[in-house]
Every structure is written in C-alpha cells, then in structure tokens.
C-alpha cells in the first residue's frame, strides 16, 4: 500500500517539488535545503530522519509556512491538491490546524505559560463549532482523554504545573483540536525522558491509525522512525539522500550515509568490538554543493561522485537513492555491515578490583528547599582501567553524584574517597590534597558548546590546564600539540576559538583538557548525549581507546542503555536518588532484576513495531 502511495498522486495529501530554502546571513544567501521532493499519502506515516543540520525541521516548517523570518522558501508545496506557497497569513489561518497540524519539539516552551490547559485546547477547537461553555468544557475533557489524560482537573492547570510528558500530551491535544488531515511531529520526544518518549510515540501512532491521519515524524533516531512510520526519507546536509519503506531500509540501506548512520547507532542487544563512526562532521550545504553531499565523508567516493549533483533515482520499486555508485558498492556495503556486527572475543574482566580510585559510600544529598533527596544512600566504586556506567533518567541523581565526586556539590551525609583522600568536605581540603585529588579524577561535561570559554582560544585553554598541573613545563606549546593529537585533532586547532569548532571537536578538546592532569579516572557526565550519532560513535571510540591505552578508568553517566552496553564493564542503575541495581553490564541488560530496570529496557528505542505496542 505504502510503496504504491508514492506513485499515485491522486491519493497524496502532500506533495512537495523543488523546495529550496535559503537563509540571509548579513548580505550572503546560504542554502539550507535544496531540491527537496516528497509525497505523503492519505493515512500514511512518513519519517524525516537526519542529524542536526540536515534540514529536516526546516523542510517541515516550510510546508506549514512557519519559517523564521531570516529564511525564505521557494518551490512548490501542494496540500490537498492546492498550492500553499505564498498564501497570506490570513489564508494560512484556515489551513493550519485544519489541514495540517504540528507538534513542537520542546513542550516546556511551546505552550503559552499564562494560559490554563483548558483554554489552550479550547481556543484551538474549530471556529465554526459554536459551543456553549459547558459543551466546550466537555469537549476539552474528551480531547484530554484522547491523549491519555483521564484526570479532568488537568484542564484547570497551567503548563508549568505539569510534567514534560503531560505537557506534550496537552500539546498533542491542542494540535489535534481542529482534526488536521496531516500531523507534523517535530522531534516530539527529544526533550523528554526515555520512558516518557515511548508513551508519547505510541500515543501518536495510535491516534494516527485510529483517525487514519497522515503523519510526518521528524527524528534523528532511525530506530524511532522504523518503529513509528511506514516510510522514511533520509536527509543529509539539506538534501534527501534516500527514500524507502521502513522495513526495507532497516534490512538493507541503499545509500552509504543511511548505512553509516544505521551502523553508528549503538545496539542495545549486543556489545560490538568497535562502533562504526563517520569521520568528520555534517558540512554546510553550500560547502558540498555541486556533487554528492556525502562524498567528503564517504568510503566509496570517487571522482564521479563530485562531478554533479546526483538526483534521487528509483533503484527498486518504491526505493530511491541519490548514490550514483549504488550498483557497484551495494555488495561492499553489505560486507561492511556484517563486519561491523562482530562481537569482541572476550569482554575484559568486570569484577571491581579492590583498589578503587573513587569510593562513594552511602552518600545522601538533599538540595535546600527540596522535599525529596537528590541522592539517597548511594554507594559506587570506580577503579583504574575499568569503565563504570551510571544509567538513569533526569531527576535520578546521576549528575548530582558526579558533581559531588568532583567537588561541585556538597553532600549531606556519607563519605566520598578519591585516591584515598576523604573529599566529603571539599572546601576544607588542604591545597596539597586538593591537587592530589584533581590529578586523580577529572570530568568531561555534557554540553560541548558551553564547556569551553567562548572568549579564549583552544590553545589558551589547554595551556592554562598544562600550567596548572605541570608548572615546570618548558614547552607548553608542544605539550598542547601533543594533547590535541592524542584526541585526534590537528595541532592547528590550538589557534581557533570554540565557536569555529563542531560539537564533536569541542568535546575532544574538553577531553584533552581533562587528560592534562593525567587522571586515573575520567568522569563523563552525559558527554555524548548532545552530539549527533555519527559523532557520538567517534567520541565513544576515543574513550574506549584511552581506556585501553592509558589504563584510564571511566565513570560514564548516561540515560542511554545502548551506549552503556557498548562502553561499560559494570553498570549502576539509578532511580529517584537511589541505586536500584548494579552489576556486570551484560548481566543487568540481559537479566534485569529490578522492575525499574525492566521498565527502562522496555522503553529503550527498538526498530520494530512491537516496541510501541503493548
């Protein structure tokens, strides 16, 4: 049915041809997306998948005429057979909400903070329906029930009084209020926790099927796309590189980028020897114009790839790819996939060695004014050369724990020893002991965009760290170059400011800075979660290499079980300030004992339909 939909225009609700969006940067016009063509059939669900900068969100916004003022779209967008490009804002009023609706990424900012939920939904109801007060109220309660909120008192609450998942449900109810024919969901779960994500996605899918509505889901996660949608458009650097049905794309991608993207996604069900990372980072569309956009990062790129802009070609019925060499490299790609799926012969010894560098014993912490403790009797050990994972959702206390170990938070009770020094009261530590602790444990933060001083060059930042830890170093410049090289960056990076580096490069710099002290354990607080998957794999491989080569211990804090499976020897699962379960990674993931761990595992995205049905 779905493959046919692409070829039968009469059934299509949305058809886009030659869409091109440009941004005005000062006096320059920069391309954001170009040559986009797509079709969505009635009742069909389609996913736009791509990393940041792929243009997936901009494409969706231009379909709705909601581009920010600096962006301009040209081309043809037909909605229900009518050209909607160039509609006036007044004309759009009759189209938006009714023919096409949208759910936004961040439920924390997308609802008017000063309106109660009943008004937010009520004002979105169809204008022609003249309902009296009571009927309107009844309708709002009914709409809330549709999105799984059975407590009618939610209608009288303000958005800031609700949790993220609840807010997103209210947002969905408001977006659906005028019963749109097509719903666009723009990364609807990115700002939410894993367990909430599954609930929201299965809700969206259920409603889509119940209403026989069309759906465009925008996501960076291929597994989410496969589980939710019939068809997938893979986007990269402002272009569509592949179109295929979900199950077929999962089985065999027909573009090197889709293939690499699938491979760099860490699997949950097994530990791989090494993740496949795509070298480099996503380029700006104009930098790769005139050829295949993926060519600079592609293993199979030849001269012919950059000779001209490749168009999407139908390789098999319903399967389109923009790779000009697909016929030649198809078999090669399959072999590369098989090679990547290898499991290591043996996983390094898991049991905690006796000489732990970090020893956290029954630590509790309650923030001033909070009713629930952030940490509640937590005990954790980390030794040199092992990687220990801490898994939990927001509010589990995992970040507080890391900050307490490194001395950025005070603990209320319990004790923390680092390299044999009691650091329970950081402020009272004598200078010598503090230095000893600093050189035993270092930290890499989550957000690579703000963990480097924007006013200072990379070289300045690293040189400062060198002078702090080895004041007698004579060749600071050489040391900085050596550090950069150890994390895979050219020495010339030293002259650059953070703003001119990509997220992955910044995170490498942050790791280099942490390595200056030659720590025995490196704490990584969600250090890969702000990065694109392809870059995430690079950083995970780097950490893995450092662990092996420098016998470095790693305390890896994350919300992502699949990532933990790839990197951690042992894992602690945290929930609401407690460690609910701990043990060797494989054992925890294969035979979880605690109900929370089971819930977390169930929520972890999988590429199958079963993930969302229960």
């Amino acid at each position, binding site marked *: 049915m779905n493959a046919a939909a692409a070829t039968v225009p009469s059934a299509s609700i949305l058809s886009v041809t030659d869409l091109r969006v440009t941004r005005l940067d000062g006096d320059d016009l920069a391309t954001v997306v170009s040559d986009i063509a797509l079709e969505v059939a009635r009742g069909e669900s389609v996913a736009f998948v791509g990393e940041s900068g792929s243009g997936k969100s901009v494409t969706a916004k231009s379909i709705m005429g909601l581009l920010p003022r600096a962006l301009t779209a040209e081309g043809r967008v037909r909605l229900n057979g009518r050209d909607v490009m160039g509609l006036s804002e007044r004309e759009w009023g009759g189209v938006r909400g009714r023919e096409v609706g949208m759910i936004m990424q961040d439920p924390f900012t997308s609802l008017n903070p000063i309106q109660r939920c009943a008004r937010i939904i009520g004002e979105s109801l169809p204008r022609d329906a003249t309902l009296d007060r009571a009927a309107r109220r009844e309708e709002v309660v009914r709409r809330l029930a549709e999105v799984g909120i059975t407590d009618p008192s939610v209608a009288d609450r303000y958005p800031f009084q609700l949790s993220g998942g609840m807010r997103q449900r209210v947002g969905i109810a408001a977006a659906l209020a005028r019963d749109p024919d097509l719903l666009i969901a723009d990364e609807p779960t990115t700002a939410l926790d894993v367990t909430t994500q599954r609930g929201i996605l299965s809700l969206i899918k259920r409603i889509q099927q119940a209403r026989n509505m069309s759906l465009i889901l925008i996501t960076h996660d291929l597994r989410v796309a496969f589980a939710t949608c019939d068809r997938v458009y893979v986007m990269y650097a402002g272009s569509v590189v592949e179109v295929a049905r979900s199950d077929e794309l999962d089985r065999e991608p027909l573009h090197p980028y889709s293939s690499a993207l699938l491979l760099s996604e860490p699997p949950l069900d097994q530990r791989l020897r090494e993740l496949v990372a795509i070298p480099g980072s996503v380029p700006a569309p104009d930098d790769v114009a005139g050829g295949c956009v993926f060519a600079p990062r592609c293993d199979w790129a030849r001269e012919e790839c950059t000779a001209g802009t490749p168009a999407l070609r139908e390789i098999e019925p319903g399967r389109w790819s923009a790779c000009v060499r697909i016929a030649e490299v198809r078999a090669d790609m399959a072999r590369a996939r098989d090679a990547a799926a290898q499991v290591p012969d043996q996983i390094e010894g898991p049991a905690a060695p006796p000489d732990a560098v970090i020893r956290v014993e029954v630590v509790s912490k309650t923030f001033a004014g909070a009713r629930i403790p952030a940490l509640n009797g937590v005990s954790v050990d980390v030794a040199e050369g092992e990687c220990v994972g801490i898994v939990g959702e927001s509010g589990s206390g995992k970040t507080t724990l890391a900050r307490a170990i490194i001395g950025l938070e005070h603990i209320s009770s319990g004790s923390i020893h680092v390299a044999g020094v009691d650091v329970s009261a950081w402020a009272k530590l004598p200078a010598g002991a503090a230095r000893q602790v600093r050189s035993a444990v270092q*930290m890499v933060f989550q957000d690579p965009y703000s963990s480097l001083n924007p006013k200072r060059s990379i070289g300045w930042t690293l040189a400062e760290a060198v002078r702090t830890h080895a004041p007698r170093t004579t060749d600071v410049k050489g040391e900085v170059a050596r550090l950069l090289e150890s994390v895979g960056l050219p020495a010339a990076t030293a002259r650059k400011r953070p*703003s001119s580096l990509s997220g992955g490069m910044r995170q490498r710099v942050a790791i280099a800075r942490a390595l200056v*002290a030659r720590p025995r354990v490196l704490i990584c607080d969600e250090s890969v979660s702000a990065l694109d998957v392809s870059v995430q794999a690079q950083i995970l491989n780097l950490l893995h290499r450092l662990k092996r080569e420098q016998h470095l211990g790693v305390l890896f804090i994350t919300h992502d079980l699949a990532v933990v499976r790839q990197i951690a020897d042992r894992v602690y699962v945290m929930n609401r300030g407690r460690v609910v379960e701990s043990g060797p990674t494989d054992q925890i993931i294969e035979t979880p004992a605690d109900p929370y761990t089971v819930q977390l595992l169930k929520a972890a995205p999988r590429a199958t339909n079963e993930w969302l049905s229960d």
Partner: protein
Amino acid sequence: MSGVSASTTMSEAVSTRGTGRRRRRRAAPQFIIVCCFVFIAVVVLFAVTGSLLAPQDPSVQNLSNITAAPSAEHLLGTDALGRDTLSRLIAGTGSAFVGPLVIALGSFLIGNLLGLLAGYRGGRVDSLIMRWIDLMWAIPSLLILVVVAGVVGASYWPTVLILVVLTVPLDARVVRGATLEQMPRPYVEAAKTVGVSDRRIMWLHIWPNVAPISVANTFLVFAGSVGILASLSFLGLGVPPGKPDWGLMLAENQPLLFVQPLACLAPAVLIILTATSMTVIGDWAYERLSEEGPR
C-alpha cells in the same frame, strides 16, 4: 535619570540579557558611529585645553553688547552680561566632561571589583551590596544630591564623589547579575575541576565574558552623569554662579529664550550630543566586545 535605577525583581533578567549568542542587535550605521567618535574627540580636546582655545575670555562682561545676535566677533552671540557664548561653552566643557569621566571610571573600577566578588563568592559582600542597592533604589540619586546640597551646601567635586558612591552599587549590580549568569556555565565549572585558581577564574575566565555588558553600562553611566551634573547646576546646586558650565548657562540664559535663544539652546544641544554620542559608542563597544566569531 529614570533609566539608571531599576526594580530588583525584573532588572536582572533585563539588564543581563544578551551576553552570549542570544540576539545580535544592529549597531547604528557606521557613519553615525564615526560622527560620535569625532564629536567626543572634540569635546575631549576642549576639556583638556580649557579656555585656551576659546576665541575670547569667557568671563569678560561687556554690558554695552548684551544679548547680541551671532556675528563674526561672537559666533554664537552674547548672553545677558555680554559674555561670549561660544567661549563660555568651550570653557564649560571641562566640568561637563571631567566629572562624568571620573564618575564612570570610578564606579567602573569599584563596581566591577565588588560585582565580580559578590557574584563569585556570594556571602557577606553579596548581601551588603544588595542592601546598598535596595537603599539606592528607594531614593533616587538626584533627590539625594538635592537634599545634600540643601543641607551642606553645593560644590562640584563633593557632588562628583557622592555620585561615584551612588553609582557603584548600580554598576556592581549589573556586573553581579552578569557574573551570576556565567557562574553555572560549564566552562567555569570545568576550570574549577581542572584546578584553576579562583582569582584566575574570576579575572581571566568570567570577566572577559562579563565585559561587554559592563563596558556598555559604563558608557550609559557616563551619559547619565552628564545629565545629573548639568541638572544640579541648572537647579543652582552645582557649580557656583558665574562659572562657565553648560547646565548653569541653561539656567542663567533661560530668560533669554525670547530674546537671544542661541545662548540657551547651544548648551542644551551640546548636552544632548555628548550624552547621545557616549550611548552610541557604548552600544558599539558592546557589539565589538561580544563578538565570538573565529579569529
């Protein structure tokens, strides 16, 4: 002067907005910025040389030639005592420029020191500065100056000194707010965990990120002080009568509006131009300093 003080609840959010890559304001067109610089340069020149460059002695009276219209001899005419308006304007540049300069620089130095300390360390310095600000906020500075002038008598330098004291908490508040905004940023915490000393973090990490707001604010303080000092002179509570001063000229020559308006309008225009130029230059400095682009 209403712009100088602000309510405590909101002001922090408003005044510290826009440190990072939040939003780029467009500075004034290039040629206006150049004009402002040129104008201020001329003002500085006259402030330094004083009446040396004045075409005539600013205090010589000529009762036979009062309220004269502009002529080759008196380019801007004369006032009610026959004194040359242009020469008095030039001679008055000193008191119009030096006072605000001292106030702006003084409160910049002390305000940055205190604000950074308060924001970084918190504790006693912080609560002391906050109380000081609360008090300043309850009674506007011009009122305090009028009252002080009424009680102990008026003179220029004590007024400037009092203004420094009154402005420091406003400056400190701006710097404190900006510092508090920087404090939880990972680059500060990262520097701490690397083991960089507090002093280095304060001055070499945080301050460069606070500087755009702080410097722009100092230009605003300068512009505001030009107004306050002129206001006091205008009320007869600033420089002693007879001295050449823009504010005082406005007061003395106000009755001439019907006869020889230039005597009164010229200092008015100069006050506006000086204050506006400094504000524009402050905006420009803010943009230049907050650029984060590649080197």
